[in-house]
């Protein structure tokens, strides 16, 4: 038998505690003569016994969201019913594409109002007049750009904005 030391055995304790070692002989024999490693094995077993699980229903919620997201991305008309909240209009554009398009349009809107001087608030849409420079940002992964700006809009302004982008109810993305 290869002489085992504490370092090698300690690395294997989590696997041994799970019964995942193909041949636990070396660990078992070492534990029998090493109180330190034996105590550590007990701690690992105690930790493994308290392993938390996800809350009930979380997997189903995520599965529905993922399937709805996949359906939207592929243009399918039949996402799972559970994935669409009642009373909400369903966009045919995945949200991450929407925010990218939104930022482009919002940035354009800011540019237009800046080039024209003070915007006419009577005719400028709310989404243009409410924006400030700090509202626009691009995250590291590019997925959250413009989200704060959209969140700041009223429902009415948001719907006006989305309608103008033609991303609702079958419009072009």
């Amino acid at each position, binding site marked *: 038998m290869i002489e085992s030391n504490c370092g090698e055995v*300690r*690395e294997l304790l*989590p*696997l041994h*505690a*799970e019964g*995942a070692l193909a041949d636990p002989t070396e660990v078992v024999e070492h534990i029998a003569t090493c109180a330190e490693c034996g*105590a*550590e094995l007990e*701690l*690992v077993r*105690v*930790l*493994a*016994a*308290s*392993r*938390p*699980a*996800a*809350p009930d229903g*979380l*997997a189903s*919620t*995520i*599965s529905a*969201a*993922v*399937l709805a*997201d*996949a359906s939207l*991305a*592929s243009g399918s008309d039949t996402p799972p019913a559970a994935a669409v909240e009642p009373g909400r209009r369903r966009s045919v554009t*995945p949200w*991450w594409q929407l925010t990218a398009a939104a930022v482009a349009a919002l940035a354009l809107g800011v540019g237009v109002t800046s080039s024209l001087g003070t915007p006419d608030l009577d005719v400028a849409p709310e989404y243009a007049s409410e924006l400030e420079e700090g509202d626009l940002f691009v*995250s*590291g*992964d590019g*997925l959250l750009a413009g989200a704060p700006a959209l969140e700041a809009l009223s429902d009415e302004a948001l719907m006006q904005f989305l309608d103008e982008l033609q991303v609702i109810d079958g419009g072009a993305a």
Partner: protein
Amino acid sequence: MEVTDAELVERARSGDARALDELVRRHTDAAFRVALSYVREEDTARDVVQDAFLKAFRALETFRGDAAFKTWLMTITANEARGVLRKTKRWKEQPIEEAAPVPDDKIDPASAAVMSDEVGRARALLQSLPEKQRLSVSLRVDEGLSFREIGAVIGSSEGAARVNYFHGIRRLRELME
């Protein structure tokens, strides 16, 4: 024989909804534990896990299979969790030498009351360790990841993951005595 993750990934890429669902059900618990180890709030962890799955499946075409799907998902989950912590100004990287455990009085009293037994106490104390130590211990004990995989998930080298694991275990043993 159980279908492997690699087979499910291939089927999911082809639009197989049941394969997507099975991948979610297999790995939600593990992803939740990773998220919870970072954010330490159940509601926030739920959001992190959902966002991580959405990002993972959107990027499924880029998954080359060099790592296990589980490890890849956990890396995305960890990135997502760190992003959430950065946004809420709570995330602060600490070198191992300077890392100090959260004092016992920072542990949620309600949780501590429920977890009065040894098992619950050990888990509560694990949550009090510095971030990389608790992640390294959790990923090793709860998920059985190698130190190389742990390093990939927490953004460290394999050696640093090993050191963090042993520091964490040693500290836990001290706290349990």
